[in-house]
Structures are given as C-alpha cells and as structure tokens.
C-alpha cells in the first residue's frame, strides 16, 4: 500500500482518536481524568516512600529513581493500552470494527493513529507530573544538565517499542472476550514488575532479572533516567551500572527491532485466527 494511503489512514485515525478522547460534554472532567489518574498512581508510590523513608531528603536518588520510573511508565500503561483498546472499543462498543476491517486500509496504521491521542495526553501528564515532582515533592532534577540528545533518542525508540507491543496485544485482543481486557493489566503488570520501573532489578530473583533484561523497556527506562540524571547516581542504583550508555542504546535498538518483528508476526497470526474463528465482529458482553 502506498505511503500516502498509510499517512491518510494515520491522520484520520489520529483525528478520530482525538475526537473520541476529547469530545466530552464536560471538558473539565476530561482534563481531570486525563491527568489525575496517572498522577494519583504515582502519588501512591510517593506516600509508600514517605511512610518508610520519612522524607525525600533521606534518599533523594532512590526517590528520583522510583518517581521517574513511575512517571515514564505512564507511556507503557496508556499508549500500549490505547492501542489495544482500539480493537475492544471498535468491535464491542461502537461496533465499527467490521467496517474498518474490510476497508482498504492497514489496521495496524489505524491502531497507531488512534493511539496518538493517548500519546499526546500522556506526554502532558508526564510533563505535569515532573513539574509537580520538582515543585511540590522536591524531586532533585536539574533541567539544565539533562542530556537531551540521549533523551530524545531513547524516547523515540521506547515509544516505537511500546506501540509495537500495543499492536501485538491488539492482535491478541481480536481473539479474546471483553472481560479479558485484563490482558493489558497483565502484560503492563509484568513490565511494571520486571523492567526496573520502581526498584532496581537486583531486588528481583535472578530468573526474573534475566527476563527483565530481555525486555527493551528495561533499557528504555534506564536510558531515560541516565539522560535526565547524567552522572553516576542512577547507574549506581539500577543494577545496570556495568553497562555504558552506548551499550544500553545498542541493546535497546536490537531488542526493539526484535519486538517489532514479533509484533508483526503475532498480529498477522491473530488476525488470521480471528477471521477463521469469526471473531472480527464478536460481541461478548455479559
């Protein structure tokens, strides 16, 4: 299919996604919802930290490690879920999936387009959370010392990887019932646990550390933290201190490519199975 056709699909899907996200009768509720929920999730960790450590100043590096991990994980939870929920919403709720499915467009491009509104909103939530962290919670972050090129490169690769996983999960959603939207929760939960999001990988059992090291998001979070905190503070905590940033970037590139390939295969397989099983226009509510 021509690139222009993909771009058109992407543009229209992104527009549709934004309309669906933002076209509320009460915009204030939409804004609160978009921001309050992820910030609350981060604040749970902050309170857990404060209950144990009695203050940010008692372990600022660990606080920054957890806070940033939690904030940037919003991309995984929201964008990946956004991509997966496209299938659920369009099939079961709006019941438009069958029309989209037979249209001469790439469903994967459509899913990516639809996820763009989530990406935009999550970016806003991340910026607000970081500002909140610095101004209210005393997050020790100096924007003047940030390694912006490393940050930009890590974010580009990380978001690509998150979208690839989202598409694979969207494919699997073709095959599963409505209530198994737990698939997002489950995969998201696994990444949350295994990718060094809240705590250093070294806290985990060795087998879990090995699994974590095979997931690109581990390297993405590590590079995001290193780019925001150049120096040795983050490297000392994460358990990946022995690896240089270049090596981690290489790991991130290779593992992202592997996930992209796997995502393509999983989506194709699930798509075919869904057609064979007649699940493209399934509704399963109960």
């Amino acid at each position: 299919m021509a690139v222009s056709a993909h771009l058109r699909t992407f543009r229209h899907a992104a527009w549709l996604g934004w309309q669906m996200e933002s076209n509320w009768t009460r915009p204030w509720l939409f804004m609160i919802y978009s921001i309050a929920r992820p910030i609350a999730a981060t604040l749970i960790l902050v309170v857990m930290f404060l209950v144990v450590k009695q203050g940010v100043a008692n372990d600022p590096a660990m606080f920054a490690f957890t806070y940033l991990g939690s904030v940037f994980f919003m991309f995984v939870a929201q964008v990946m879920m956004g991509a997966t929920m496209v299938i659920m919403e369009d099939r079961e709720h709006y019941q438009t999936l069958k029309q989209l499915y037979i249209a001469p467009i790439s469903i994967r491009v459509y899913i990516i387009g639809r996820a763009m509104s989530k990406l935009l909103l999550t970016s806003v939530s991340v910026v607000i959370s970081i500002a909140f962290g610095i101004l209210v919670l005393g997050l020790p972050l100096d924007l003047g010392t940030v390694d912006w090129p490393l940050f930009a490169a890590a974010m580009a690769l990380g978001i690509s990887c998150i979208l690839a996983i989202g598409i694979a999960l969207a494919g699997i959603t073709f095959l599963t019932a409505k209530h198994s939207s737990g698939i997002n929760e489950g995969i998201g939960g696994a990444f949350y646990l295994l990718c060094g999001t809240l705590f250093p990988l070294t806290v985990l059992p060795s087998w879990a550390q090995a699994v974590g090291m095979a997931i690109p998001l581990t390297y993405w979070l590590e590079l995001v933290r290193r780019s925001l905190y150049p120096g040795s503070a983050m490297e000392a905590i994460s358990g990946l201190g022995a690896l240089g940033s270049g090596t981690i970037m290489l790991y991130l590139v290779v593992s992202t490519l592997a996930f992209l390939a796997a995502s393509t295969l999983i989506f194709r397989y699930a798509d075919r199975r869904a057609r064979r099983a007649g699940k493209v226009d399934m509704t399963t509510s109960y």
Partner: protein
Amino acid sequence: MAYALEVSALSRAFTGKQTVVALENVDLKVKEGELFGLLGPNGAGKTTLIKILSTLLLPTSGTAKVLGYDVDGEASKIRPLINMVSGGETSGYGLLTVRENLWMFSQFYGVPGSVARERIDGLLKAFGLEDKANAKVRTISTGQRQRMNIIRGFVTDPKLIFLDEPTLGLDVTTSRTIREYIRDWVRARDDRTLLLTTHYMREAEELCDRVAIIDRGTILACGPPAELKRRMNHASTFVMDTTSFDPAPLSAVRGVKGVSADEIESGKRVRLVLEDESAISDVISAVVSRGGRIVSLNKVEATLEDAFIEMVGRGLG
C-alpha cells in the same frame, strides 16, 4: 368497551441545540383485544410513542393511559402487564444460550421457573427455534436472533405488547411465521392487545384490526384498513410504466392539488393517486416533456398504501 390505550393531546419535544417536536397533540384510543397498527415513514414519531407507552419516556404534555394506568404516575403498575420488542435489537448476552437468555428475561417479570420453561419450550417450537435452544446467542443468525427477541416479548405473557418493526429485514418464511403467531396470539384471548409498527403495508393490511397513519408527529387518519381504503373511493389509482425519464418533475406533480405520486422504480414506474382523473394529462405531459415515453398506464384497485401515499404525500420506501 375497555381501552388498552388512551392517549390524549400527547406531545413530546426533545430539547437540545434545536428543539425537535416528535409528537404533537396526538389523540388515540386502542381497545382491549385489538391488533392495532401504527404506520408512518421514518421519523414520524412511532418509536417515540411506543417509548412513552412502554414507560421509557415521559410526555412533554398531554396524558397517556396504558391498561387504565397513567404512564407518568403509575409506571410500576403498567410494567408487569406489558412487554416490548424492537426489530433488529441486539439485546441479551452473547455468551448465554437462547434458552438461558429467555429464562433470564422471564425472571425479570417474576415468572416461576417451571412456567417459564414450559412457555419457552412452546414458543421455541412455535417459532421453529428448538434446534437453537442451546446455541449461544452470539453464534445464531440475525433472523434467529429476531425470533428469539420476539419470544422474549411473549414469554412473560403480557396483556399488551408493543412490536416495533418485528419483521424488519427478515425472510419471507420467518416473517410469515411471526405474522401467524401474532394473529393467533391476539385472537386466543379477549384481553390481549398488540400494537404493531411496520414498514410493510401488506403486513398492516393483513394483520391489523385498525391502523393509524402518523407523520411528523401527528395522527393523520385512524380506522380499519378497509375503511381507510374506502376513503380512497373518490380517488383513482394508476400505475404508469415509462421508458427512462428524468424523475425530477414528479416532485412538481406531487405539488399539484389532488395528485400524489410514489416512484416504484426511479424514472421508470410510478404509482399515482388522483382525486380527479383529468389530472392524468398533466402527469403524462410532465413525463413526456422530460424525455419519457409511456409504455403502459393501468388503473388499479386502491390499497392501504395508496391511502397512505395520499395522506402523507409520499410512500414509505
């Protein structure tokens, strides 16, 4: 004679950016034991009226009584006595079987288990759905699903049932099964009443004791189909076949006093209802001037559809 439905000066407006008047000053009485038809084009107000009568919607003004109870203040007395089925509805749960779905809905009306089972078995048989009784609803066809929906309406043994386009999009055999059941159901007991909306004139003509024609929220006529047709006796109905022509002048013809026209086949076949036969020459001129040639012109017996066309000014199609 007791009335199953008594509607008086009933109006309903939907307010939003623009106010839409769905029903305006509707008066209607349906006797107990009647099979009553409501005919009207899309957007005429049929579904709004059914929603009000089935206690889903309140009127803006006027009153409506269902089986003697007011829809506004006595909804809880009406609900045990009625049921409602809409054509093309997707109710129920796809993971349950047909039998389970029917049982579930019967429980919402407090039907005892053994009675529900007996009724479900009888209805599944009557509608030729016994072999699908244990199939999950998400696996059955549209026609089978619609038969299940209709069974859902009857399984609670209502005194009054609203059927909104029950045969919409169904094949001939299924439609006939449904029509036969509807007729037998009403006739089986004196206290059963059925309000039917349909797009199919033949269905209304064949089934209904009386019919109301509704358009733009207003009842235009009400009576037995034969009486409505008799009102057409002063008029003449023609079916005209032509070679292809620009159908635009038909809109002009429709505007001529005493002439109603309905295209059966765009630019080729027209059904005409004329109060005065002499107006036929104007119609022929209109067609010929647009490049059409008259292939045949036949005077036919008036139908309910002709009555409808004359009153509404257009067909249902």
